[in-house]
């Protein structure tokens, strides 16, 4: 059984007079320790799919179709409290903007520990702190103790994204959803974050759903790739398949659009 199995998933918005389909017939699987890259331009439905898996789509004003099976259980139909039990513990998410994704008035330490406070109430505060510091060290933050006691505005963008990853990893999740996690960062930091995610993937057998509009990043990190356009999957396959031998015209165009750096 795959860790994650998305079957014929669709989202239809009902917040306007005419319903609007933003995701249609999306199906894919993700195994333990695998990295799936989803690539597409904005509006292609990739973020919507990611939010749905993370359980972050509002329940009102939209209709969701199909199934999202996490370890065999459908995230779309399970009870809200059961879903909350998975969020932050088994399924974690990091976002595009590390500058705003952290609570500005809460110390980093408390935010990193939060998933433990919610899901592992029996843990002592000392153990929680130990685990948080360990996670901050795992994401290669120097002086983790000092970071633990600082506020988000005291850190750089790259550091904050590392904090977000540390906070996601704190409860040993099985699935990490990374929605454009490096888009807001500069290129050198981007490369470091990619390397870090790969390391966590190997070390913790973490499955990653990596979403980006940047094909070269997708090529670097993913085991398999799916290309989305206008709410549908255009093409899916292994990295080699997609980049060496793309079948669809849209995929070819995307690959052709990667700027080549010649020095």
């Amino acid at each position: 059984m795959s860790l994650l199995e998305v079957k014929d998933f669709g989202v239809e918005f009902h917040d306007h007079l005419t319903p609007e389909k933003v995701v249609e017939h999306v199906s894919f699987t993700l195994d333990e320790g695998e990295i799936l890259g989803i690539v597409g331009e904005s509006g292609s439905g990739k973020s919507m799919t990611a939010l749905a898996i993370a359980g972050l789509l509002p329940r009102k004003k939209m209709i969701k179709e199909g199934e999202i099976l996490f370890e065999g259980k459908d995230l779309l139909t399970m009870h809200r409290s059961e879903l909350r039990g998975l969020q932050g513990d088994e399924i974690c998410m990091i976002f595009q903007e590390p500058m705003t994704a952290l609570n500005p008035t809460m110390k980093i330490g408390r935010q990193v520990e939060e998933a433990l406070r919610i899901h592992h109430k029996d843990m002592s505060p000392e153990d929680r702190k130990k685990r948080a510091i360990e996670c901050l060290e795992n994401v290669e933050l120097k002086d983790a103790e000092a970071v633990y006691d600082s506020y988000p505005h005291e850190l750089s963008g790259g550091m904050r994204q590392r904090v977000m990853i540390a906070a996601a990893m704190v409860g040993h999740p099985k699935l990490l959803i990374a929605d454009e996690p490096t888009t807001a960062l500069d290129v050198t930091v981007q490369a470091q974050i990619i390397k870090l995610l790969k390391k966590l993937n190997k070390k913790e057998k973490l499955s990653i759903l990596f979403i980006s509009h940047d094909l070269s990043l997708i090529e670097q990190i993913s085991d398999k790739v799916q290309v989305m356009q206008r709410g549908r999957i255009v093409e899916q396959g292994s990295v080699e398949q997609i980049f060496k031998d793309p079948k669809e015209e849209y995929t070819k165009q995307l690959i052709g659009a990667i700027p080549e750096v010649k020095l």
Partner: protein
Amino acid sequence: MKQIFKKILSMLLTLLIVSIVVFAAFEIIPGDPAISKLGSNATPESVARLRAEMGLDRPFLVRYLSWAADMLKGDMGTSYSYNMKVSSIIVDKLPITLVMTVVSMVLTLLISVPVAITLAKYAKSGIDRTGHIVNQALMAVPSFFLGILMTWLFGMVFKWFKPGGFISYKRNVAGFLGYLFWPSLAIAIPKCAMSIKLLRSAILSEADKEYVRTAYSRGNSTMEVLYRHVLKNALVPLITFWGMTVADMIAGSIVIEQVFNIPGLGRMLLTSISNRDYPVVEAVIVLIAMVVVVMNLIVDLICRKVDPRIK
């Protein structure tokens, strides 16, 4: 630390300016304390004698400096009309106005925070819309009018308190608080309405921020997101508002003390202005300015504590 030092310096400067302005104001406005004390039939000689006795014949600057020097030493001078030390009059009146302000503030907080949370929770529903209309109406009604309304309704119709029957705290603390509850409520209601409006929209705008999505992604329920994350951030703008509200309440006591016949600071200020009782007026206004300035400092310190980004 340096910022706080700067703040205190600007506080002192503000007080200096206020004191000069207050002192100068009585130079400009018509009226003579000697005449108002002796009556308009007094002979020019006796008026001149009294003016000399009061020190009013000295030049403006000399009078200001000697008054300011006395104030710094804690000597607020002697009232013209009561023949009492100004400080002892203020000590007598200040607790009344202060207690009223504190009760109003407590009522404002106790009412506005839960109501704002409820309205934000049910935003755009029937409750929220009704709340908005009621709120808008209460915001528009001035405290003194509410005071009159309450005196009639709760005092005369329901007889829950005796209109005009102020009880001194020296005689009966419970009775004193029981009477002050009503004017405090009259002061609090419009402030509550404003706090509710501000806090409700602050909560809603915070709820749209991305850190809220992060909080949900960690498995927080809606209530947990609200109390652990949103509320603290939403309170930052409110703290400033509440700080100004306290200052406003003390200044506003002038009117409400008239309506409820309360012998507090505000009423004393009013009588002293019409009696041209300069020492009392000057002391009270400097005192009110001091409260405002100190409130500002406290608000600033709390804001820094709550929002670490303020530096």
